[in-house]
């Protein structure tokens, strides 16, 4: 039953196999494994091997030598959130460029017009954001 879902092991799709297969992601998997493993091993090793002689001064949070005052868990300004939401929207816009870039020549002018309209709508939104002053930090 599982073979049905793993399309890359489907013998009918031998054409795509040569170029774009899931097995191409094997080096990326190895790299992620190595990166995570390296960080984990280093953290565990320093924890086990390093000497620990804690004093009250050493356990204090380091704030560039200035004495700590107040609480770090203050509610933040809503301005950050606005910038983050706008970032997500433009991030999604960029996502749509990848499939267009891969098919750039085949789609020709019709695809170009479609993408131009898409970007045009986004530019309208961008103009609105700039005019409203949503990205100006100082009120």
């Amino acid at each position, binding site marked *: *039953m*599982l073979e*049905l*879902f*793993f*399309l*890359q*092991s*489907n013998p*009918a*799709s031998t*054409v*795509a*196999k040569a170029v*774009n*297969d*899931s097995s191409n*992601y094997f080096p990326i998997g190895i790299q992620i494994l190595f990166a995570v493993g390296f960080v984990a091993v280093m953290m565990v090793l320093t924890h086990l091997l390093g000497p620990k002689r804690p004093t009250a001064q050493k356990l204090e949070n380091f704030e560039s030598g200035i004495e700590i005052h107040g*609480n770090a*868990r203050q*509610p*933040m300004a*809503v301005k*950050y*959130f*606005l910038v*983050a*939401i*706008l*970032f*997500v*929207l433009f*991030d*999604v*816009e960029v*996502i*749509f460029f*990848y*499939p*267009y870039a*891969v*098919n750039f020549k*085949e*789609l020709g002018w*019709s*695809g170009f017009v*479609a*993408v131009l*309209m*898409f970007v045009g*709508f*986004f530019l*309208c*939104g961008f103009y*609105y*954001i700039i005019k*409203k*002053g*949503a990205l100006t930090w100082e*009120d």
Partner: protein
Amino acid sequence: MEITQILFWFLSVLAVFGALMMVTSKNPVYSVLWLIVVFFAISGHYILLNAQFLAIVNIIVYAGAIMVLFLFVIMLMNLNAETEPQKNKWLKIAGVVAGCSLMLVFVAALRQSDELLKAPVSMGGETGLIKTLGKTLFTDYVLPFEISSVLFLSAMVGAVVIGKKGD
């Protein structure tokens, strides 16, 4: 066992474990970190299904951008331990009822999967590749694509209107 199956079971266990840890951890920042683990596991599933575009989008948009939003939401709230809101008893009961209803829907959907498996629609292994997806998106589905940009425009206007209350 084939290596694909080993990967499948590993990623499934990782996703379910991450989801459980996300729901049960007390610290909301830990919840967000576990949610990132879940997203990466699901991206691995997408790659196993040869839906490479979805895998990359899942990492860029969800693990990259939506997670930033979640962290900002957490930082917007007051996170001191003494101001932890007390959960209402009725709210808990409502949550249990809602969760059970969702479970019911999932079970009902899974019960039909046997009939669907009898007539599988196999479109080969290249359905989820970026090239195929782009060709379909920009020829057959141009209109929904343009309408989605209007949706983004409205989202932008909404965010500015709500976030910029002063003027």
